[in-house]
């Protein structure tokens, strides 16, 4: 599963899907089986073996399996047994589900508040840097390169709740009393989001920067002719020109935050008192943290529900914003 995850890949994928139009080689006409055998036919299959092998075994079959397993009871020992909607009922009746959903939504809202405007502002400011822009973007991107596990463990140390903890020393210097950070139900989630924003903002900044370079300078010229100052140019030219990428990044961020796992898993383990238990942590708990053996059915049922909700949300979102993204 070392795939570049869908969230990571998506801005390019969206573009790719638009540009990928499969055209059959015009020289390849229907020639019957014999012609196929004499031509490249069998050789093409040889080249397709790696793709078919890995996608059938590790992508297509597991997707189909997931759809089946959600309606089965599987425990690796007895043959799987059909249980209808039992798994879904189990999940929906779990009191933790509500907590996980609320926490995940809370994470998403906080991540939007912190993670959506900051990269945009930084990118707009950076796009005006004339010299050393490379240094600016390298600095901004550096946190993305630090392995997430290392970063999380490092921040866990920074978040030390004693008055000599790193962050408490920093805020102490400006007179703010020590905070409990990860130790308190109220501050744990914001602390996690702060870390997640730090570790991911660089990627978003680079994407915005690329989009800013694509804004036609003529538009600024025109705005000046109409007497627009700097702020009005930003507001009336830059932001509208970035509309498309802003819309895509918004939905990607929602999809990404709905699947947050590593940060709460390493920083708080879901605590204190389940205040950072997210949907993905719950799926993980069902499948892999159960002393009685994994409840694989419940785990897949919940993951499929999450996928469906995200799909419906994205569909509605793109429907509603259809008119905005194209000019």
């Amino acid at each position, binding site marked *: *599963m070392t*795939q*570049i*995850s*869908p969230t990571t890949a*998506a801005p*390019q994928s969206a573009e*790719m899907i638009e540009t*990928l139009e499969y055209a*059959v080689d015009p020289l390849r006409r229907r020639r019957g089986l014999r012609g196929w055998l004499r031509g*490249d036919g069998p050789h093409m299959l040889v080249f397709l073996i*790696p*793709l078919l*092998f*890995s996608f059938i*075994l590790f*992508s297509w*079959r597991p*997707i189909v*399996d997931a759809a089946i*397993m959600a309606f089965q009871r*599987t425990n*690796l020992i007895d043959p799987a047994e059909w249980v209808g909607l039992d798994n879904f009922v189990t999940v929906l009746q779990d009191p933790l589900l509500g907590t996980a959903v609320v926490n995940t939504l809370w994470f998403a809202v906080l*991540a939007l508040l912190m993670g959506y405007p900051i990269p945009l502002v930084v990118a707009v*400011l950076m796009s*005006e840097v004339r010299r050393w822009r490379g240094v600016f973007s*390298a*600095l901004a*991107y*550096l946190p993305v390169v*630090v*392995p997430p*596990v*290392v*970063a999380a*463990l490092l921040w866990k*140390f920074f978040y030390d709740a004693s008055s000599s903890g*790193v962050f408490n020393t920093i805020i102490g210097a400006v007179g703010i009393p020590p905070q409990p950070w990860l130790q308190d139900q109220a501050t744990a989630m914001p602390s996690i989001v702060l870390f*997640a924003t730090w570790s*991911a903002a*660089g*990627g978003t900044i680079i994407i915005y920067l*690329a989009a800013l*370079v*694509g804004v036609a*300078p*003529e538009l600024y010229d025109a705005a000046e002719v109409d007497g627009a100052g*700097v702020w009005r*140019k930003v507001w009336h030219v830059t932001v509208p020109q970035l509309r498309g990428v802003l819309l895509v990044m918004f939905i990607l*961020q929602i999809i*990404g*935050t709905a*699947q947050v796992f*590593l940060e709460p898993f390493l920083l708080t383990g879901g605590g204190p008192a389940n205040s950072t238990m997210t949907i993905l942590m719950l*799926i993980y708990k069902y*499948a892999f943290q159960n002393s009685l053996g994994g409840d*694989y059915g419940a785990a897949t049922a919940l*993951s499929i529900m*999450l*996928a469906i909700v995200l799909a419906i949300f994205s569909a509605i979102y793109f429907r509603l914003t259809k008119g905005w993204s194209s000019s």
Partner: protein
Amino acid sequence: MSAVDEKVVARRRGAPAKDADRGILSTADWRRRRVRATTRVTHLILLASLIVVGLGPVLWLAKSAVTPTQDTLRQPLALWPNGMDWENLVTAWTRVEIDKYFFNTVIIALGVWFVQVLVATTAGYVLSVLRPRYGRIIVALVLATLFVPSIVLLVPLYLTIVDPPLLQHSLINTFWAVWLPAGASAFTVLLVMRFFDSLPREVFEAARIDGAGPYRLFWSVVLPMSKPIVGVVSVFAVIGAWKDFLWPMLVLKDPNLQPLSVRLPQLQQFIELDVFLAALAIATVIPIALFLVFQRMFLSGAGLGGAVKG
């Protein structure tokens, strides 16, 4: 192509700044003293914050890796340690056996790299260069997987590894469990396909007319031409494998096989702080080195490695 279009295209290719090449601020704006001063100050503040926020934690880690525990605890923000303790790195590398986990990570990353490059280049070759009639179905099926969140795959994929079809033997606690699923990366396949689509078809046709068979065409014509994209895929495969946590944690339960990312959280409990921070620093060196060497690739707006969430 009109002059205007040409200018836009030139900008997109990242052409060096010309007079006509401008951002939000015009040349006239830049000449106004107030605008220039404000911009300069804003940029200085921005640079300072980027240094503190982006570089700060990394430098702090580098410093603390060679600082005795007591110093780090008592004065976490001291710019210069009272005593240097290079032994931390040695202890981490030998006694805590970071060397073993480091090499596990390297082996995993190399295997993932090989599998991803193999799958993506061969598939890209068939689907973008040879283009069989049934190719469009395969492309559609590969594309479709992009829309399935990876969490849906987690449990079925795990069960596939525990009980692989045709093979009577569980792949848990073997590197194969990490290497093989890495091949099913739709994003990598599509990236390579898109690159192959942009190669001039005349070259392939010329090679065919000169008598090159499909294997020769792949090995001697297409692969040499695809060095840039193989480079991109390689760097992201290695970085991705280095970062990966959940999947290796699930399938590599034997500590002797675990990569750094899986082992580090567990080590925290039973080693001293300074040695632990040294271990964290060691785990960060390779990704940062790759970033510094291949900076352009990361920052070129292809932005492929940019995690988007958060």
